[in-house]
Structures are given as structure tokens and as C-alpha cells.
């Protein structure tokens, strides 16, 4: 072969290797992203209907849509409960697991186990566990002397909290493994020298573990916040957004608008808000990272 064609051929081979991924990315991620933005300025109703350009109407409507506001508020409450609880459970179980030598493999598997099961089966089982009259949770609470335990999924006050409890139970094992790997990466000599300086267990946690772990902990916070804005399955199976609107969250609202009421243009505007929220959260968190993460 001609020597001058050699580099061209190398580029061609490389491009061929990437081509399938590139085509899929373009067709099902990049174009939808642009198309979604366009859709959000139209009254598109789905399938073969023709979209009409309506300018900023969808966004104006969003600002006055109290149903959307409720779902946004619910989602924020969910985030504010889910993120710290999951991070705390994950951190403490990782610390505890790191400190024990016995049963470690079993414990790691037991805590991670909920993660491998589907949200749907988990939601179904917990729905029955939390049944106010027949469910074991309230039977135990009654046996403990609480005469009027919460009605969980039937109560608009408790339903969202019940969803958070299940979500934390399901997710913390995943973040625990990430943090456990982080803890095991902390060099032993840091603890040794802290001990020589007379630091007790709590001080060693505060001055050695936390700073060394901060990049991993930070990653866990970013991931849990982003995840909390994607909650759908639990809500769909456990409560269907109810009672009333009490557990209706962002993605569930988008789903309802797009695939039940076929107001896809409006749903696309909501999706743009979701996209924006996650981008802002990520950017803010990466800015903050510089302030409190020490390497």
C-alpha cells in the first residue's frame, strides 16, 4: 500500500470502531436533546400531530402551574430527606464495616442486596409491609405501644416520607461500597501519627477520615442529589403520585403530561427545567468542591 495513505487508513479504522456508538449517540441522545428544546416551544401533542410554534407559552404556563409547583416542592422535600439520610447511613455503615473483621463479606452483601433488586418488586413488597392495618410494620409499632401508627401510603402527610424510607433502604448499600473503597484507600500512617499525637477515635474521624474521604463523599453527594431528581419507579408503583398530589415528583409529572395527557410540548418544557436543575446543582457542587474538599 501507498505509504502516504497509511495514516489515513489508521484514522479510517479508528472511526469505524467508534461509528456504531456515534450513530446511536447522535440519533438517540444528541438529536433528541436539540429536538426536545425545540419541542418545548411548541404545542406538540405526540405521534403524528403537527407541532405549532407557540414561543415561550409553555414556560409562561409553567410559572403559573401550581400542580408543577407541587411536584417541584415534593421533589425538593424528597431530596432534602434522601440525600443526607443516604449519605449518613452509607458513611456509618462503611465505617462500621471497615472496623470489623468478622462477617465482613456477608455484611457487605446484605447491605448491598436491596440494590440489585428491581424498584418495582421493592415497591410492591414495601407497599404490603406498610399496609396500615395488615402490614408487619404497623403491627410491630402497635406491639411497641404506639396505638395510632402512621397510615403511611394512605396518608398525604406520611406517604412521601414512606417513599424516602424505602429509597434510602434501597440505595445506601451502593454508596456504602463506594465509601468503603475510599476508606480503605486512606493510608494507615495517617492514623498512626494521629494516634501518636494523642487523638482519640472521634478526633481521628474528624481530622483524618473525613478530610481524606472528602473527594469520595463529595462524589456520593453529587450522585445522590442527581438521583433524587430522577425518582419515578417507587412513586409510580407505591403511590401513583397520591394520595392527592402528595408524592407527585418531577419525573412523574413529566411522565403524566407526556404519556397520559399527550401534552408533549409542555412536558418537554418541564424536562428542560429538570435538565437545568441538574446542571445547576452539578455546577454549584463542583464550585463548592474547591472550598471544602481537601486532597
Amino acid at each position, binding site marked *: 500500500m501507498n505509504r502516504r495513505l497509511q495514516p489515513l487508513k489508521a484514522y479510517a479504522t479508528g472511526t469505524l470502531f467508534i461509528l456504531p456508538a456515534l450513530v446511536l449517540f447522535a440519533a438517540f441522545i444528541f438529536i433528541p436533546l436539540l429536538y426536545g428544546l425545540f419541542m418545548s416551544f411548541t404545542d406538540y401533542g405526540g405521534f403524528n400531530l403537527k407541532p405549532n410554534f407557540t414561543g415561550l407559552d409553555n414556560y409562561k404556563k409553567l410559572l403559573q402551574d401550581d400542580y408543577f409547583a407541587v411536584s417541584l416542592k415534593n421533589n425538593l422535600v424528597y431530596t432534602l430527606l434522601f440525600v443526607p439520610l443516604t449519605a449518613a447511613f452509607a458513611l456509618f455503615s462503611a465505617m462500621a464495616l471497615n472496623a470489623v473483621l468478622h462477617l465482613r463479606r456477608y455484611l457487605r452483601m446484605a447491605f448491598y442486596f436491596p440494590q440489585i433488586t428491581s424498584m418495582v418488586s421493592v415497591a410492591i413488597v414495601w407497599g404490603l409491609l406498610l399496609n396500615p392495618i395488615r402490614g408487619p410494620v404497623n403491627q410491630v409499632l402497635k406491639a411497641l405501644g404506639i396505638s395510632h401508627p402512621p397510615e403511611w401510603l394512605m396518608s398525604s402527610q406520611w406517604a412521601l416520607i414512606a417513599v424516602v424510607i424505602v429509597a434510602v433502604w434501597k440505595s445506601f448499600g451502593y454508596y456504602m461500597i463506594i465509601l468503603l473503597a475510599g476508606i480503605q484507600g486512606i493510608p494507615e500512617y495517617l492514623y498512626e501519627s494521629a494516634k501518636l499525637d494523642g487523638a482519640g477515635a472521634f478526633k481521628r474521624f474528624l481530622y483524618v477520615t473525613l478530610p481524606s474521604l472528602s473527594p469520595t463523599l463529595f462524589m456520593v453527594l453529587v450522585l445522590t442529589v442527581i438521583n433524587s431528581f430522577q425518582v419515578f419507579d417507587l412513586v409510580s408503583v407505591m403511590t401513583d403520585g397520591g394520595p392527592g398530589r402528595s408524592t407527585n415528583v418531577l419525573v412523574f409529572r413529566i411522565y403524566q403530561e407526556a*404519556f397520559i395527557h399527550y401534552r408533549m410540548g409542555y412536558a418537554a418544557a418541564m424536562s428542560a427545567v429538570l435538565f437545568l436543575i441538574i446542571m445547576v446543582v452539578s455546577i454549584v457542587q463542583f464550585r463548592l468542591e474547591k472550598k471544602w474538599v481537601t486532597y
Partner: protein
Amino acid sequence: MLNALGTKRRDKVFYSLLLLALAVCSIAALFPFLWMISTSLRTDVDLFRNPMNWIPNSLYLNNYKEVWTTIPFGRYFLNTLKLSVLITVLQVLICSMAAYAFAKLKVPFKNALFILFMTNLMMPWHSIMVPQFSIVSKLGLYNTHTGYVLVQLFSAFGIFLLRQFFLSLPSELNEAARVDGFSEWRIYWRIVMPLSKAAVSTLAIFTFTFMWNDYLAPLIYIQDDGLKTLQLGLKAFQTEHTTDYGLLMAGTVLATAPMVAVFLAGERFFTKGVATTGMKN
């Protein structure tokens, strides 16, 4: 930290208490599954005795027989198996090819392309699900397995994971093979892939579990009962049969069992893969 424990008596007591607390917590973590199995082995009469007996009086296996005939459970199961296997194989293939190119080959605008792909890691699928659905249905693929499969094949996570691994392989290996007259395809398939079994298995197990458990995407893309997956079937089953707890739980156990098998077989890949997601790039 570990060495310090167990040296003093006080530490020994603390250690035992910690272990006990962890054991209790682990049972609490597993309780919903234990309850699920116990309920699936009961008649409803046995379940709602008052006060509730936690261990079934006798093993009632009929739920496991009936669930196959009450709903098209076998069909859902086969659909889910087909889709999960197909998507896993194709996704691993597509991701590994792209990852190999990013790690070892010449590609025009390689860095820009890689960054573009990786932005997908930050972008929630939920924010593009509406336009993506609209495009797939315009292609005439709504309510087909093909449409659902197509939207699942690209994975930024998969490309990232495999690229990191491929980068760690020595480039001299590729050079030597090239000198021996191997084509890039042969190097990729015969040398790189076999050397990367651990990373490839990690991705495969992750993808398989994710696809098996997927709910929202099938909910959007699949309409016909004959095309439905287990998760959709379970959800519909719950709505129609909430009163028959035993039957519902038998279905849930059967839908969960394959994932438990995969988990027990590939536990080290799971933990390795999870630990990797927490790593900074």
C-alpha cells in the same frame, strides 16, 4: 485502625457490640425479602391470622404454580430474558469497540468526541425521554422490542469504564501484534477483549441487572401485553391482584430470583464496578 481493636478488654466489648449491631442491621436490611418469601409460601388465611404468625404453618407451594397461569408470566419472563441478553451483548460490543478506539486508535477529533460522549454521564435520561420517544415513534418503532433495544445501546458509563481499563494495557502489545501483521479488529477481538475479561464482565453484569430491572423505559415504549417485560407485568399484576398477597409475592420472588443468582455469581464484579463509579477520573 484495625490493629488497635481487640488489644484491650474495653475494645473487645466494643468490637462485639459493633458486630452485633451490624448483624441486627443486616437482618433489618434483608427483612423485606424474608417477608416476601414467607408470604409467597402461605395461603391468605394463614397470612391474616391475628396476631400474625411470622413463620408459615405449612408450606403452601400453589402460589408458585398459579402465578404462571393467572398472568402470562412465562411470556413476560422470556421477553425480559431476551431483551436483557440482547441489550447486554450489543451494548458491551458497541462500548468496547468505541473504548478501544478512544484508548488505542487514531480518531479525528478524539478528545472532543470523548468529552461529548461523557457529557451524557451528567445528563439524566429522564430529561430527554420525551423527545427520544417521539423520534423512535416517528421511525415506526413504538411498541416494538427493536425501538426499546435501540435506545438502550449507547452507554457513556460503559465506554468510560472500558476505556480506563484498555488504557492500562501496555501499548507495546498492540505494536507487537501490528508488526506480526494482525489487523486492528483481530487485536481488539483476540488480544484486548480476552485480556479485559474482568472489566467486560463488570459492564455485562451491570447492564444485565439494569435492563432486567428497567421499568420506566418499557412502560413508555411497550404497549402490547405479549411484548411486556416482567417489571411491567408485576406492576399490572399488583394493580389487579392486590388482595392476593401470596400470589403477588410468588411472582415477585420469581422475578427477583435470577438477579440474586447473577449477584451471588458475580459479587466481586459488582463491588469492583461500584467502587469504580466512585473513583475520580
